[in-house]
């Protein structure tokens, strides 16, 4: 199955992988933020993603609204959806479910992911729901040596990384970022200084919708936006979020996403297309097996001593 190709062919794969990986990183960040801060397995993230990507295109194509306002409306819609999930579904389920909360929320989230896209399809009609393309930034091809990419690719990578960096800066330097990290790191102390965890959850859901939505926009531009476009990204989001570690720096998440994208892309060198899918999940499986082995026989698998935090440090 080894396909012999030139070096530049390989570099092309890596570049394509990096472009994809930038999106993997951002969706991982978007999803991981929710899981790290709220603890909810928000599977309906896939729907928020699709709402942003699909409706930006749909509104731009079918109403008189120009592109930029369409995008804004779509992102707001995704944010509102996320908040509704939290307030109208997750909180009631949690208060009733007791010990089963994690599972019940996950299943409810799954139900939402089935219901909402189908409701939207019903409203806008099959044709639209099957694909709307957002025409905005053009795909002029560019060349560097023998490697090809487009203007859109460049804008995509720049924007996605800018979002990642902006999130990092927000969390690191702003009061809002401190508040979010406080709730994530030590909800008890957050309460002690008067921070409302519930409102913080909502803020995080909004940020997540915007980050994921931006990534969705580019898919709508490159290909098409559909109501079910979130189903594949949500798995990459899962993988990247957990592989990078929940609650870690956004820059690290972006880097892990890029790495996964590059590995996936580079594997095209040696694997057929069908097997590429296996690569990402294969990586995840190996990572998890390794993690388990570390717990089973720590001495064999330890690379660096774990950072020991003394008694007072909060931890989730």
């Amino acid at each position: 199955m080894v396909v012999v190709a030139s070096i530049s062919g390989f570099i092309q794969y890596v570049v394509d992988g990096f472009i994809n990986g930038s999106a993997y990183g951002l969706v991982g960040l978007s999803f991981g933020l929710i899981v790290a801060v709220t603890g909810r397995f928000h599977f309906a993230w896939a729907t928020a993603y699709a709402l942003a990507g699909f409706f930006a295109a749909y509104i731009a194509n079918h109403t008189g609204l120009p592109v930029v306002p369409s995008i804004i409306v779509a992102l707001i819609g995704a944010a509102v959806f996320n908040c509704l999930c939290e307030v109208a579904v997750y909180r009631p389920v949690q208060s009733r479910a007791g010990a089963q909360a994690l599972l019940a929320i996950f299943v409810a989230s799954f139900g939402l992911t089935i219901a909402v896209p189908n409701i939207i399809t019903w409203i806008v009609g099959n044709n639209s729901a099957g694909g709307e393309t957002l025409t905005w930034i053009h795909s002029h091809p560019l060349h560097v040596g023998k490697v090809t990419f487009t203007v859109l690719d460049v804008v995509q990578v720049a924007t996605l990384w800018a979002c990642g960096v902006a999130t990092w800066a927000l969390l690191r330097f702003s009061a809002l970022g401190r508040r979010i990290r406080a709730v994530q790191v030590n909800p008890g102390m957050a309460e002690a200084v008067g921070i409302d965890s519930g409102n913080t959850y909502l803020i995080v859901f909004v940020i997540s919708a915007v980050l994921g939505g931006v990534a969705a926009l580019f898919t709508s531009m490159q290909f098409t936006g559909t109501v079910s476009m979130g189903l594949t990204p949500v798995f990459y989001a899962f993988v990247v979020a957990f592989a990078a570690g929940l609650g870690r720096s956004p820059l690290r998440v972006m880097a892990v996403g890029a790495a996964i994208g590059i590995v996936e892309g580079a594997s095209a060198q040696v694997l057929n297309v069908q097997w590429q899918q296996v690569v990402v999940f294969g990586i995840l499986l190996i990572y998890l097996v390794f993690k388990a082995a570390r717990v089973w026989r720590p001495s064999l698998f330890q690379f660096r001593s774990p950072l020991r935090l003394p008694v007072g440090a909060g931890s989730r």
Partner: protein
Amino acid sequence: MQQFYDHANVIAIFAIYAVSLNVLLGYAGQLSVAHAAFGAVGGYVAAYLGVNHGWSFIPGLLVGGAAAGLVGVLASLPAMYLDVRFVILLTLALSTAIIAVVGAIPALGGATGLTSLPFPTAFGHTLATPSQFFTFALILGLIVLAVCWRMVQSPFGRVLRSVREDEIAARGVGKNVVYYKVTVFGATAAMAGLAGVLFAFYNASIQPSSFDLSQSLEIIAMVVIGGTANLLGSILGAAILVLLDPFLQDVVNFGPNTAGLVRLSIYGVLIVVFMMALPQGLIRERWTPERLIGWVRRRRGAVEEEHAEPAPAAAGNGVVATPDGSIALEATGLRKYFGGIRAADDLSLQLRGGQITGLIGPNGAGKTTVFNLLTRVIPPDAGTVTLADQTVTDWTPNRIATSGMSRSYQDVRVWGRMSVLENVIIAIPHQPGERLFNVFFRPLKVWRFEREARRRALAHLSFVGLADKADAPAASLPFGEQKLLALARLLATEADVLLLDEPASGIDIDGVERMLGLIQQLRERGKCVCIVEHNLHVVERLADRVYFMEAGRITAEGTMSELMKQERLSEVYFGSG
């Protein structure tokens, strides 16, 4: 009529999926999203053998099931050492990987899969029509149901439920948790494999998309809607979700395009509404037929013969391994450092049979760490622990618990959803019914021991005074009685060395009195008891000897009155002026 059988077949297949997943999810508490993927393993193995090698249906079925079971066992091994969130991720990755692999192997037909599977045949009959297939599917379904039922009703199933609720407490009474989890993963994966084979041969074709993640999630929804930890509920859940589609199709009369959309929308909304209204599922765990019969009987005033007073031989449970006064447990030079913190520093102590030893010291002195080190919950960095002449420093926690030493917990850790009696029975050691092999192939032996175990458990409950509440769920007991229950559970392990972690904390004066009386009786029976306590009154009344700990070291020992006279100790405990 054929349409009825068509529905019935699909329900039967998904009932097998749902019932087996319920055992894994509802009883063992393992959240797996790979259940349908195990169906893919079974289905593809059987289909491949049928199409390419002419295997007939039933051998293919068995091999498919076995293959799925094997994959289940292997896949579960990493899950033993991972946090529960990672188990979800592990099964997620596993599911996607399996589907991707079967979709990529050329011999398995790629995305279109294998078609033209031969007609299934069973014992000479060809199952050509839905009604014929249903006869077989129904029988197989009933077999699976019976197997699952037996599994969860047996002592094995009882341990599963305890692992689900509190794994640490299960280990504390000597259960090898890994064995249970791996076994149940493997068994349920095998059953999913059988369902996968049925599915493939019913449709005479097999594609990867029939076993993907969304299918696994639907099966989870069936289990959750029908009620976790209730097998009949899973059949109901499967029926509801399978029939929902056709039901809506008949009732909802839009055009063909929109009909499908509305159906799916309502399907999704219903799942959400169910979770909001009834997150515990339609049928609660406790609503089993046995409970129903028992309830009916009680209303009719029938006599409960099962709970007759146990024989007065209650006093003689367990062999006293060490005569009074001699050393039952010895720890020498124990050391445990966590980073820079010295939780235990060259610590040595001796516990004697027929004596109560107290372990006191200010907060942070490391008392609970000592218990953890003795029971090997955490491994010491150095030092040895000897239990009645055997060096147990390297043993696993559950081995120690079944060899004569066990402990209670500060926060009690009873299994709230299980009955008081069940809490105690689980702790009875060496039950044949805990091995799955015995459950199915030596039922008589299991039954006989179960009667004996019940008798013993009731004796322990009488000792602590809870025999009349044997059937109540443990969570319904007030805290003080939960502590008594925990003590009864501890006694059921038949350990001679009992480590009690704050037995008197958090309960009122009367409860404390009761507990003290019981602990004194244990001493009279020759048990070796060690208590960690902050309530110095309790220590003064109970302990024959007391060890005083500070910062990981034992700095004084003697009787309580001797220690109280030492000014230095007063300083350490209450602070210096």
